[in-house]
Structure formats: structure tokens, C-alpha cells
């Protein structure tokens, strides 16, 4: 268990590199260097996150006019894939961050100026996620925001699987909004609190205990009398509507990157292998037709997974492009993107899991040596895939194809919630809670 915190690398004035001028190839190469050792040692990718912050990674989606990278979601998904291929933890660690960016972009386009947030993102500030609780009703979190006399709030509670928060300056907290004079908690609305993790009442420990994706920083975060200004408390109903598809896109890109890493490693290992079976097809392993066909199968899995993931990115971008559309149109675009992401997952998770397991068949027993950690690809893929059970997704897709059944509206891994009504929220003034 690690209890570190990646403190911000600079003040807001000391701006990070403009992401448009970043050489991402060099950044990826640098992150790649220590990745295997981090996995073997069980270390969080602290320096890698620092590097990403300093290079403007978190501001890639911020419009260029506001100092960001101005990237669309297809471009972002492509970069996520590349990043996952060098360290599968990182796109997932940044998932909550990019969701908050997306939320701010949506509101900026619809109703309210979000330049203050754009500035933070451009300054390298990162957000994590703090939505999950254990054993509580999804519509009634135990983490509570209580109004203070000055109009601000105090936040108390404990969140689990707070992916990315350990690295972040901000965390995005799902909480119950307690209302004085309304004693029935069940009636309370829920809200999103954007919490500054530099507050001394915020503590994060890395107690994530999965056999894969060990460096995502998915630990436990406690909030003890943490002050939250009113403008950082947002009605839950106003959340950007394509969060479900966006989260799935992040997982798809991570899976695809893992497969790419598996391909890279198997190609290198085959190139290095000198010893073949005496009755093999060719003297050199790298000329053995069976080995080559196996590697070809993995390459094909990567190709198809990338194609499907980028296609999903396009469908999510279509929602992001329609902030001012009518409620029905937004709902239809959201539904389409969720069905597309579910559809892609059915194939992608299978292709990637198979690729990460099959790669060993091109190699010998020595490939199982623990210092090589070639099993991390399967362990990572298996862990990511279990967020999106293929069994469930295939049925959702089939029910949509046959009966037009809309996908379950999952706002987070494992939960479902009521559908948003965008007409209402569009009429409202802003984000203040």
C-alpha cells in the first residue's frame, strides 16, 4: 500500500508546455523506459504523470483559443491507445480528468463560461474521480455536502476506487446534498463537488488491490470537513450526457493499447529467439510459419481493435459536437454512442484477451520468467475487461438490435440511473448548486 501524493509541479501562473507543441513521441518513449520496472516493483507511475502534466496532456481537449491542444476525441483516443501501449495504467488514471474536462467543455458551449477551469487544465492541474462507495445506494451516497453559513459547503465521507485522485490536484466527488429543514435524506438531491485535493482534509491512499492495472492510483480517498465553494458544487443532473460512452471509450482505448503492447513485445521476443524445436518448420524462430501466423493474428486483432475504438470515438465526438441541439437529438446521439461503445466492447475485449494470452504460444517456456512480466498484458486486459462484462454487453447490443431497447444508463461502473432531461437543464442559469 502506497500513501504518497503527487503534489502539483507548479503554481497556476507557471504554465505547462503548450500541448500543441509537445513531441508526444518523445514523451511516450520517456514513459516507456521505466514501465516494466514500475510493474515489477509495484510502483505508481508518479514521474510519468508529472511528465504528462508538464507537457500539457490534460489540456489536449481544451480549445486552442484557450491555450489547449484543441484535439477532437478521435485524436485523443489515438493518443490514449499509444499511451496505454507504453503504460496501460495512464489513460485509466486520467479517465476522471478527461471526463471533467469534457463536462466543462459541454457547459462552456451550452451555458456558462468555464475559462477558469480551462486555465487550470492548461496549467497542468489534473482531476481524479471519487464516485464509488461500497454498499450504498447509488442515488443516496453516504458522502455528504452540508451548507455552511457563508454559502459554501463542507464535505465529509469516504470514496473507493478513486482512480487518478492520488496524482491529482482536484477530484470530482459524487455526494448527497444535505438541506437544512429537510430531515428525510432519501429526498436529498445529489451533486458533484469539485474538490481541491490540496485541502488538508483530503487524504488518499493507494489500497487498490487488483492483479492488473496496478498503477492506476485507484485508491481510497477520505474527506474530513473539507471546504467546497458554492461554485464548485454542481447539480448532478447537469453532468455532461455522454459520460457513459466516454468512460467506455477510455476503457476501449486502454484495452487496445494493451494489445498493441502485447504485439510489440511478442515481435521483439520472436526476433530475439534463437532456439527452436529440432523438428520445427524453420531453423530460425522468426521464419517459422506457425509463429508468424500467430503473430499475424495478434497484429490483426490490434488492427481491428484500433479501428473499432476510433469508430466509437467518432460517435462520442458526434455528441460532443451537439451541445446546443434539442433534447431528443442529444438523447439519440447519446444512445447511439452508448450502443456503439457496447458493441465495440463485445469484439474488442475478446480480441485483446485472446491476443494477450496467445502471445506466449509464439514463445518458449523462458517467456514465463517473472522479471519479463509478459503476463502483465493479460492481467491488465483481464482487469479492464471485467469493468465491461462481455456477457452483459452482448445482451445489451442484441436487445437494442432486436427490440430497440435503450442501453442501461450506467453513470458509473456497475450502476444505473435515471435518464437526464436536457431541456430542463438547458433552461437553467449555470452550474451553481
Amino acid at each position, binding site marked *: 500500500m502506497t500513501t504518497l501524493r503527487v503534489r502539483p509541479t507548479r503554481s497556476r501562473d507557471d504554465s505547462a508546455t503548450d500541448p500543441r507543441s509537445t513531441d508526444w513521441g518523445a514523451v511516450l518513449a520517456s514513459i516507456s523506459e521505466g514501465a516494466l520496472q514500475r510493474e515489477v516493483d509495484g510502483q505508481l507511475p508518479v514521474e510519468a504523470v508529472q511528465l504528462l502534466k508538464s507537457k500539457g496532456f490534460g489540456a489536449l481537449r481544451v480549445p486552442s483559443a484557450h491555450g489547449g491542444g484543441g484535439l477532437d476525441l478521435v485524436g485523443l483516443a489515438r493518443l490514449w491507445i499509444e499511451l496505454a501501449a507504453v503504460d496501460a495504467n495512464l489513460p485509466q488514471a486520467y479517465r476522471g480528468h478527461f471526463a471533467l474536462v469534457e463536462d466543462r467543455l459541454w457547459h462552456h458551449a451550452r451555458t456558462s463560461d468555464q475559462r477558469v477551469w480551462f486555465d487550470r487544465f492548461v496549467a497542468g492541474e489534473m482531476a481524479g474521480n471519487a464516485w464509488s462507495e461500497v454498499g450504498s445506494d447509488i442515488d443516496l451516497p453516504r458522502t455528504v455536502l452540508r451548507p455552511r453559513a457563508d454559502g459554501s459547503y463542507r464535505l465529509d465521507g469516504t470514496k473507493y476506487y478513486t482512480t487518478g485522485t492520488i496524482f491529482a490536484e482536484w477530484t470530482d466527488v459524487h455526494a448527497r446534498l444535505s438541506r437544512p429543514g429537510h430531515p428525510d435524506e432519501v429526498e436529498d438531491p445529489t451533486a458533484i463537488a469539485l474538490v481541491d485535493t490540496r485541502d488538508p482534509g483530503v487524504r488518499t491512499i493507494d489500497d487498490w488491490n*487488483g492483479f492488473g492495472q496496478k498503477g492506476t492510483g485507484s485508491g481510497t480517498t477520505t474527506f474530513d470537513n473539507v471546504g467546497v465553494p458554492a461554485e464548485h458544487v454542481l447539480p448532478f443532473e447537469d453532468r455532461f450526457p455522454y459520460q457513459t460512452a466516454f468512460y467506455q471509450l477510455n476503457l476501449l482505448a486502454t484495452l487496445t493499447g494493451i494489445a498493441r503492447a502485447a504485439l510489440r513485445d511478442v515481435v521483439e521476443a520472436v526476433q530475439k529467439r534463437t*532456439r527452436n*524445436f529440432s523438428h520445427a518448420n524453420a531453423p530460425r524462430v522468426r521464419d517459422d510459419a506457425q509463429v508468424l501466423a500467430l503473430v499475424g493474428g495478434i497484429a490483426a486483432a490490434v488492427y481491428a481493435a484500433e479501428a473499432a475504438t476510433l469508430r466509437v470515438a467518432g460517435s462520442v465526438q458526434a455528441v460532443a459536437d451537439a451541445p446546443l441541439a434539442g433534447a431528443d437529438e442529444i438523447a439519440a446521439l447519446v444512445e447511439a454512442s452508448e450502443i456503439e461503445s457496447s458493441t465495440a466492447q463485445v469484439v474488442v475485449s475478446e480480441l485483446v*484477451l485472446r491476443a494477450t*494470452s496467445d502471445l506466449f*504460444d509464439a514463445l518458449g517456456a523462458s517467456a*514465463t520468467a517473472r522479471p519479463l512480466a509478459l503476463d502483465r498484458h493479460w492481467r491488465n486486459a483481464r482487469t479492464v475487461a471485467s469493468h465491461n462484462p462481455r456477457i452483459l454487453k452482448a445482451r445489451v447490443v442484441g436487445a437494442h438490435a432486436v427490440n430497440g431497447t435503450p442501453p442501461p444508463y450506467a453513470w458509473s*461502473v456497475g450502476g444505473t440511473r435515471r435518464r437526464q432531461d436536457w431541456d430542463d437543464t438547458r433552461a437553467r442559469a449555470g452550474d451553481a448548486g
Partner: protein
Amino acid sequence: MSAAVVPEVEAVPVLSHDEAIAVATEIAADLAATSLERDRDRLLPGRELDRLSASGLLAVTVPTEHGGAGLPVETLAEVFRILATGDPSVAQVPHSHFVYVNALRHQGTREQKWFFFREVLAGRRFGNAQSEVGTRHVRDIRTTLTPAGHGRWTLTGTKGYSTGALFADWIPVLARQDTLAAPGTGPLHVAWVERHAPGVSVTDDWDGMGQRTTASGTVRLDQVEVTADRITPYYLTFEGPQTYGAFAQVLHAALDVGIARAALTEAAAFVRTKSRPYPDAGVDRAADDPLVVQALGEMELDVRASEALLREAARAVDAADADLTADSAAAASLAVAAVRAHSARVSVEVSSRLFEVSGTRSALDSLNLDRHWRNARTHTLHDPAAWKVQHLGRYVVDGTPPPNHGQL
């Protein structure tokens, strides 16, 4: 001979088929209860092996004319499979033991049989020192027996992946028996050396991602003295039809089949007791979700198919032993190739699908459920299934019998 690893018994029980299955089932249940910790902390299974020796299971293939149970391969393969459902690492350790009991039956002198079978009946274990690391291919052997005069030989070389050597009483070492005139080219023999003889050292340097406690270390042989009566002619094994390779391979297959069953049993238990149903599945228990049930059913039929192929292969080896011809030996090799390739695929798949049916919670490190996949993935690389498939394919298309060597 070390007191620590040899049980304090005069002679181990001679088991019938039914007794062997019952004893294996009992031991497997205990192994299953502790396999998680052994894998996690890499606890070598010294005590577990002593229990196996004391139970009589390691002596079941000693021929009846030497006072043993003389049980067939069909029984032994089932014993292996059952033990592997408990802990495939522990089950793999005595693999070489049985292979060399078998080798003695084929190629031992009368005196060697008399001596070594008595050792086995007394609970002694054989290890293995066969593979060499860094040579061109698996059958490029550089360890040598050089003549030292007066019926004595000197054994020198280094062996890797020597499963079971650490816990063995005797280590049979594959080596070329050289003449001084042409070193490194002599025919392959097996030299039997005591585990703690001068010049023998065993290092526990296995660090694989799975099958972690097989004690597959490095054996170094530095001018070890071997007398002529402790040398058996390995090469003769392959001069006619043989089941030596099929015997070794069917036991490997039994390990994979056992891993597959263990993974499925654990998946079913997890689904029954721990998994939450998927939201919107409309059921109260994950075990009532028809798609989860379907996945478990598919896994079950794959495992059953491997189990059926295992039984057929073991019987084919028994049949070839009873009436050894080129045809019966080839039939046994092909049957073994089928179960080897099938169980390789199934053990890897089922141990991965475990997570598909069990859901997110099953991925916690503390449960260590990934050990099944790591075990399957590691052990299925012992020698590549692709080659078993090639042999089957050549037989199908051209009627070509499989090659006559130790790997099949």
C-alpha cells in the same frame, strides 16, 4: 540421503486403483485449501511431497513382479489430474519421478530394477536433470559421462528446469556417454546420482509467473563419480516403437486438464457464493443469469472433452504397452498429442473465462484467482502444443505417423 525429505517408513502402502484414486482425492482437497498461499508466497512443498511419498501414490507404477501395485497409465493419469486440481505445482514435481520409473522398466538392467524399485517402494523420489539452457534445441545435450577407468565414469554438466531435483533422493541425469576419442558425440544415457553426492548441487532459481513452486531449479554436476551399474542406455528407448514419450506427455496433459477443472470449480463457487448479478439482468443471483450459466456450461463441456481425451489417451498408452507395435505406439502418440493440444487450449481458456463469469470482484489480488491462468499459461509452454497439432495434421493429411522420440 537426507532425513528431512525421506519419510520415516520402511515401505509405503501398495495401492489398488480405487485406493489410489481415493488417496489422491483426499490429498488434492488439502492441497486446494492451501494452494493460494503456496503460490503467493512461493512456499516450496517439501511436506506435501513427503505426504505423497508416504501415501504410496509415488509407487503405484512399480511392477507387480517387484512387489509394486503395477497400476496402469489410466490410473496414474487420473491420479495426476486429481492432484493437479488441488495444486498443479505440487502435482508436477513427481512427473519426472514417474517418467524415470517408466524408463527403468524399459531400459534398466535386472539389478537396477531390483535396486531402484526397492528405493521407490521405500518412499524415495527421483528428480530430473534433462534440459540444458542455451543449447540450440531441446535435444542438443552437452552434459557428458567421461570414462574414469575401472567401470567408473565422471559426470559433468549443467541442467536447467530440473523439476523435482531439489526434493529428490536420486537424480537421473541425461548425458552423452563419451569415448575419449570423440567427446560430445556419444549416445545418450541416464546416469543416476544421489541428490547429495559430492559434486551435485541444486539451486532453486525457477522464477516463472506460474507453476511457481515446482522447485524447477538448476542442477550442477561437477566431476560427479558414477559407477557403470548406475547408468542406463536412454538412446535404446527410441530404437524401436516406444511409449516413453507418450507416457511422459500424457502426464503433462493430466496436469493441464486438472488446472482446467480447478479453474472451473473455482469459477462456479465464486459465481454461486460471491458474484453480484449484473444490473438489468433481472435475476437475484448471478448463478441464475442464463448467460453466466451458459458460459459455465461451455466451460464444462470443454473441460469434459479434455477429460475424455485424457482417459482415451491413457488407455491408448496402456494398450500400446500391452501390445507394442509401430502402429499401437503411433496410435498412443496421436491420442496423447490430441489431449495435450486440447487441454493446453482449454486450460488457458477456462482459467481466463473464470473472470468473465465471476465479474469485477474476482480480480482482487488477495483472491489470487489469476494463479490458474498463470499456471496454465506457464505449464502449457513446457513444450509447444503447436507441434502436437502438426503431428495430428500430418497424420490426417498424409497418414504420417508421429516421430519416435521422447516428446511424444
